[in-house]
């Protein structure tokens, strides 16, 4: 036991706290109820006082090793045991294990006759016995004010109750005292005058036919605590308080990017997709393809091996699976593999808090990396817009702190401005995709654009997309005189461009062919010129040969003439043949 106490050591060393084990309550009280002191829990009938007290005891006995005593003034032991069995608390078992002692104190006005001075020592004796029998550290007095209806001497009662609370403190037990709330005062008999360490008020309100339970810590001496009203609910696991403390902006921002499941949409989002643990809002008119894009995202998450939780508020899982199969997205395989979990419920079946708590619970159980809510706007049908806003703010913060990427879809009705979501969450989200229908040339075509995306360079283009057999496909952008061309106008334009491209292609080919021919012709001409040149060279060579032979002949003639004249000796440059021809002549 002491181990658990050490483990739960409070931040403030001056005030030890006893953890309640009730989900969320320990968070807002900063560790639990004041240890060794009485705590007052007040509220009107049926607001969950007894249950809160009982859970405090049961959790103490089972989780923190602190046995407890439940002293009831209104319900018998059997009744109590039956009542909490539905929450999984087996009181009989705890009693047998000596972890819990229960005592029903019956004070019936018609049985009692007051005949003078008395005190409540009997109560003390019984309580003392019960505490000692199990070594209790925790005590619950459930609606001690029942004494006031049984006994009429108020002066004695008040004095004795004061003594009781003092005695509980001296005993060192952590006590929870429940009482009815009164008109204008916290409790009907102003017990808050005696129990001043910690006062918790429970409330059960019905707004728009939806009931909401709320809890508020009015007073907690010696410790800082949250003073807001917190919604809480009672389900099969007992009480869970939803701390609005999670309304924080401390979440770390991840730089990791994850694909939206549509490559060309990723390209629009700076080329890489959404930021991990960011919140994406997708708003659009009816039938603009929100669920399809959400399904792409879910499939992409599962493909990465991440778990995805899909909250469907308007369609059943089977319906979504069937519809997505028709556009080529097979979500069923991921459901089978346990990566995708659908939670389908009509928004109107619960109050907002119940939804929030369900979401919290499922997220904690399933541990998804991606959460899809389709559509969040339907939650406004449950509460007021303001409530829905508060709830979504809480939800978004909660998901962000868990590092979960959330995709919310929101339906924009025709009479509203497109940039207005049903729930005003636009300022909370990081990325906002707007889907809309463009009516042009008697057609309705789907377009999308990125309205905002924090922290990334994103496309500013309006993109048409089609729901094909392979899912959502973003189309090329064609700008016409009236803006983006969509549908058949785009197709016409595409066809025109294709034709023009073909024509251009053919022209280019023709030109190329022409060029080849031209080159061939030029080459032929070059060859002809070369031939001509060669021919001329031939002629020139022949001419010079003729010239040389003519000169030779001339010289020979000259020599011959010289010999015949017996003139000069043979010219030095004379031909050898001429010389040899000469010599015999000289000798002769």
């Amino acid at each position: 036991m002491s181990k658990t106490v050490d483990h739960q050591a409070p931040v403030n060393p001056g005030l030890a706290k006893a953890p309640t084990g009730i989900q969320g309550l320990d968070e807002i009280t900063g560790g639990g109820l004041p240890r060794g002191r009485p705590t007052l829990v007040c509220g009107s009938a049926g607001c969950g006082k007894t249950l809160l007290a009982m859970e405090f005891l049961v959790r103490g006995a089972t989780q923190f090793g602190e046995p407890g005593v439940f002293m009831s003034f209104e319900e018998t032991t059997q009744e109590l045991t039956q009542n909490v069995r539905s929450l999984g608390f087996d009181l009989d078992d705890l009693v047998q294990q000596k972890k819990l002692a229960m005592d029903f104190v019956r004070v019936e006005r018609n049985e009692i006759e007051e005949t003078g001075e008395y005190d409540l020592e009997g109560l003390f004796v019984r309580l003392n016995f019960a505490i000692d029998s199990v070594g209790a550290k925790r005590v619950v007095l459930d609606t001690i004010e029942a004494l006031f209806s049984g006994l009429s001497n108020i002066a004695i009662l008040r004095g004795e109750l004061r003594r009781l609370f003092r005695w509980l403190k001296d005993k060192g037990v952590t006590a929870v005292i429940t009482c009815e709330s009164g008109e204008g005062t916290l409790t009907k008999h102003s017990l808050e005058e005696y129990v001043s360490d910690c006062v918790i008020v429970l409330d059960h309100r019905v707004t728009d036919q939806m009931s909401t339970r709320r809890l508020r810590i009015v007073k907690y001496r010696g410790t800082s605590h949250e003073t807001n009203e917190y919604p809480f609910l009672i389900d099969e696991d007992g009480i869970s308080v939803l701390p609005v403390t999670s309304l924080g902006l401390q979440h770390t921002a991840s730089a990791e990017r994850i694909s939206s499941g549509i490559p060309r949409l990723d390209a629009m989002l700076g080329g890489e997709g959404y930021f991990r643990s960011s919140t994406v809002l997708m708003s659009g008119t009816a039938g603009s393809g929100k669920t399809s894009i959400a399904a792409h995202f879910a499939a992409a998450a599962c493909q990465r091996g991440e778990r995805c939780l899909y909250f469907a508020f308007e369609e059943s899982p089977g319906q979504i699976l069937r519809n997505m199969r028709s556009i080529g997205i097979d979500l069923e395989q991921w459901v089978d593999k346990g990566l995708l979990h659908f939670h389908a419920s009509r928004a109107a079946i619960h109050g907002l808090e119940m939804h929030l708590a369900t979401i919290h619970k499922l997220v904690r159980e399933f541990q998804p990396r991606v959460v899809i809510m389709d559509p969040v706007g339907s939650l406004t049908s449950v509460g007021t817009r303001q409530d829905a806003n508060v709830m979504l703010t809480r939800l978004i913060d909660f998901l962000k702190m868990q590092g979960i990427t959330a995709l919310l879809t929101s339906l924009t009705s025709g009479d509203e401005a497109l940039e207005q979501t049903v729930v005003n969450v636009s300022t909370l989200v990081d990325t906002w995709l707007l889907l809309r229908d463009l009516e042009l040339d008697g057609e309705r075509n789907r377009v999308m654009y990125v309205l905002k995306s924090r922290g990334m360079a994103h496309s500013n283009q309006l993109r048409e997309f089609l729901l094909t057999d392979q899912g959502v496909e973003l189309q090329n952008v064609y700008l016409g005189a009236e803006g983006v061309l969509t549908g058949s106008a785009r197709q016409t334009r595409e066809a025109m461009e294709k034709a023009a491209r073909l024509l251009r292609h053919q022209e280019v080919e023709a030109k190329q062919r022409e060029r080849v021919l031209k080159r061939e012709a030029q080459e032929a001409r070059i060859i002809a010129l070369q031939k001509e040149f060669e021919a001329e060279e031939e002629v020139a060579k022949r001419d010079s040969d003729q010239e040389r032979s003519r000169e030779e002949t001339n010289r020979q003639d000259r020599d011959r003439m010289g010999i015949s004249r017996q003139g000069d000796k043979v010219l030095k440059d004379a031909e050898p043949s001429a010389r040899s021809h000469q010599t015999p002549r000289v000798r002769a």
Partner: protein
Amino acid sequence: MNKFASTDEQTAGDQIVAIPTLVRKLPEPLRRIVGDLSNTERTLVGLQLRLAKQEK
């Protein structure tokens, strides 16, 4: 301290809260006379030895 509720179990079994308490178990119905019996009139009424109407 008191002669009526001597043991712990007895206080629980007889549904004793206030001290002193005198319990009339028989004849039925059960009556608890709480207090020091200083008001004789009320004690007698409580024990149903006298009718409450005669008290006035």
